């Protein structure tokens, strides 16, 4: 597609439920990143994919968070047993390769009530 597409754009969930967030990167972009943006905070790195593998998942805050990428394209970020502190905007970005800039999606605004 023309840009990075994320769905849903908004998600309200009850504490303790699992959620799945989807990212559809720009076609042909091999690198994919997930970041989290909390109110008044900068972007916090979560995980990086190169193709289908995740060489850097150092930013995942707990084992409740996981992500996968299939076919070198779509990625899903899963949060299990959501907590109120998980409320944030989850941003996905893709990049063609070394030397290219990141292109971000519009994010998924997650609210845990």
């Amino acid at each position, binding site marked *: 597609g023309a840009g990075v597409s994320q769905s849903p754009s908004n998600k309200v969930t009850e504490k303790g439920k699992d959620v799945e967030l989807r990212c559809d990167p720009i076609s042909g972009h091999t690198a994919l990143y997930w970041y989290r943006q909390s109110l008044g905070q*900068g972007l916090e790195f979560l995980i990086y994919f190169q193709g289908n593998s995740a060489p*850097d998942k150092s930013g995942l805050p707990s084992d409740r968070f996981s992500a996968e990428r299939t076919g070198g394209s779509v990625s899903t970020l899963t949060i299990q047993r959501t907590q109120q502190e998980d409320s944030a905007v989850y941003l996905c970005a893709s990049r063609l390769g070394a030397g290219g800039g990141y292109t971000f999606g*519009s994010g998924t605004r997650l609210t845990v009530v």
Partner: protein
Amino acid sequence: QKEVEQDPGPLSVPEGAIVSLNCTYSNSAFQYFMWYRQYSRKGPELLMYTYSSGNKEDGRFTAQVDKSSKYISLFIRDSQPSDSATYLCAMTATSGSARQLTFGSGTQLTVLP
């Protein structure tokens, strides 16, 4: 202490003013510096990208990097109401695909008509 510090503002200026936005950082390994603009409920978009110390100009925007002081700036000349957004600085030590960016918390700018 955060690796990247950025004054959150808010900053309000009249149309036509020169705007100065700044970040300081502590990691001397950072070599690549970026400025992103983020409109409300949108993902960040890349404005400026610079390597090492020096100046870079693009239209009304000028980015400055002073590695000796660990200080970067973004200047906006002849500011317009359409420049009203949150501006995020970002930086990284490496240029390869695996690089993750470290972001400042963002400065909220309003340009008044």
